[in-house]
């Protein structure tokens, strides 16, 4: 999976591209840990480039939500594909994430 990040003030956007599965989820988790140590207010996962999300990916998203809430920060989702949205809806975690249709990073 390719991860590209953009920082807009105190808002970090992670652009994910590829399958979000057991192979790529440790990489995203590592990025998340790194992001938590930074001085930011929110993380936005831009999932435009994600075609498939497995349970491993969903687990990382739940962990991201819990860790961000714990730190008083927020998590957002942007540009989810239909398949990814369906998966999050099935698992019942879609309402946890504030959605932004398009990410304007200002970059």
């Amino acid at each position, binding site marked *: 999976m390719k991860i590209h990040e953009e920082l807009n003030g105190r808002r970090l956007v992670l652009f994910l591209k590829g399958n979000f599965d057991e192979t790529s989820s440790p990489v995203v988790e590592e990025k998340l840990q790194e992001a938590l140590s930074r001085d930011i207010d929110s993380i936005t996962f831009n999932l435009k480039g994600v075609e498939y999300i497995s*349970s491993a990916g969903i687990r990382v998203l739940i962990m991201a*939500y819990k*860790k961000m809430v*714990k730190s008083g920060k927020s998590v957002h989702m942007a540009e989810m594909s239909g398949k990814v949205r369906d998966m999050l809806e099935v698992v019942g*975690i879609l309402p*946890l994430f504030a959605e932004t249709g398009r990410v304007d990073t200002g970059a």
Partner: protein
Amino acid sequence: MPKKPEVYMRRATLVSLSCNIVLVMLKATALILVNSLAIAVDLGISFVGLTVSVILYYSIKLANRPADLIHNYGYGKIEHVCEALEGVVLIGIALAMSSQAVMRLLHPGEVNVPWVGLLSCTTAAFINFGGSYYIFKMAKKSSSPAIYAEGLHWRMEGFISVMIGFSFVVFMLLVAGGRYVAAGYVDPLVALFVSIVLIVPSFKLAKSAFFNLLDASVEEGSQMEILKQLGKYINQYCEFQDLKTRSAGRNKFVEFKLVVPEDVSFKKGHDMVSLLEDEIKGAIPNCEVTIKMKPCKKDCEYARKDQKCPYL
């Protein structure tokens, strides 16, 4: 009232065992009469099937034994041993028969009374497809990977019998058309083809069984079920840690730590853990769930700002 999984498993193995005895006798007779290498491959597969059925019958008895002091997690893994055994033996047969087929291609032999071969293959195909339908039904009801593997084996054997039966039709047509040389190559070519076709699923079967023996985590559907339950009660715990799963035959094991607010009462925390355990057990059949309750370290933003914990 639904029956216990072992009832369905025992039914499947009994059907498999008795049908395999019939198949081995049928194919051995056909081999003597027809002298076909393709039937020899088919007989080899059925013979393995019969041996595996016998092992499976006793393994299932063992797999259903409750956990004891020596095997604290039960005997479920014996099912994966059966799968691995079946895969490895089938690969061996396929390799041995391919070399025989190559030898026969270099020195083509004669096939006698092909219509007997055709009759034997047609009967075998009917038994195989009928058997696989029943075994798959039992596999679904019992959620047993070993029974499912047995169903796959039966279906594959059915296709192989159809293929060999078809080769006898081609052989008879070629002989009727006076093409005796070409007809001599049909049998070893089909035997070679069947052996090659046999290797792929056998390899996959052995590979998945070996992975499961190495404590593979539960399959994707069950993983999703766990996350669904964690998502359902997400606003009642701080976080979850060290989620680990493993499967042993049809039994599944799930464990993780659930971090709850330090100030939560023991009863409330315990109720939460019990609720999650029951929900996961209800969603995943044959599942054992162990959740350890862990107090939070009060290192969150709410504690720092002296705000009320949202999970209390």
